[in-house]
């Protein structure tokens, strides 16, 4: 994966969280891993197609997901994760990955995003194949860790 792409995702995710959640993100150390190391409780999955193909997964612990969603929804200690939370988190994932891909726009002609899909639990199946290699970029926040997993290759 090209450095420009990694930087695009770091900046895109940070921008989406700052603008939409009002949350600053501190980037941790990126690592490469397989799908079995995608450890999560709540995952927003987005398929990417066009000049690049692959998947982006925005992952949270349950508590962090609830805190992020509550902040977006203007709720103070809401009812925990409910349909409104998942709806807001999907939109956040959409904006974070969309912003990231937009930063690649001068390098590519066409990129499309699938509708976001939310998964709860440690088994993430949407858009995932066993042979995928992911770049994992963790971010620290005041409400816990957020990690984006990206697996993208040039499209055929």
């Amino acid at each position, binding site marked *: 994966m090209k450095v420009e792409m990694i930087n695009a995702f770091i900046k895109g995710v940070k921008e989406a969280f700052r603008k939409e959640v009002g949350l600053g993100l501190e980037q941790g150390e990126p690592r490469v891993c397989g799908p079995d190391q995608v450890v999560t409780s709540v995952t927003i999955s987005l398929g990417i197609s066009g000049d690049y193909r692959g998947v982006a997964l925005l992952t949270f612990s349950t508590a962090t997901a609830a805190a992020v969603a509550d902040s977006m929804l203007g709720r103070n200690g809401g009812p925990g994760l409910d349909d*409104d939370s998942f709806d807001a988190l999907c939109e956040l994932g*959409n904006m974070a990955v969309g912003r990231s891909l937009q930063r690649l726009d001068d390098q590519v002609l*066409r*990129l499309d995003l699938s*509708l976001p899909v939310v998964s709860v639990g440690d088994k993430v199946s949407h858009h995932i194949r066993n042979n995928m290699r992911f770049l994992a970029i963790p971010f620290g926040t005041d409400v816990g860790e957020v990690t984006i997993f990206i697996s993208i290759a040039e499209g055929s």
Partner: protein
Amino acid sequence: MIPVSENQSRTFTFMIVDDAKYMRAKLRNLLEGAGYKVVGEAGDGAEALVKYKELLPDLVTMDITMPEMSGVEALKAIKEFDPAAVVVMITAMGMQQNVAEAIQCGSKDFIVKPFDDERVLGSLSRIIRNHFQ
């Protein structure tokens, strides 16, 4: 917040089209806070077309990536039904290709999420000034 234009002689009506309830609520709050009237919402492009014909809003805000019918397809269908329809795309998909396609199909502006409130209200004020006054 940018207020509704002072020389406006009527309240302009909006329809919000977005598959995310969160975003529809956010846009409704923003528009109503600025003095506009939101007369309807739709969660996908197909519903947007049906509701547009029924409600005939002055302006439509339209997401692109949605189930059933995309925002660009809905834009084309609405413009076919009403060539004078005023539609603004508000989407997370801000790549050049998306912008060009939407503008070519008749969108009056293209706003990328996450957006600044001033960017949205400024765009709508300009469009209202150019098209209705």
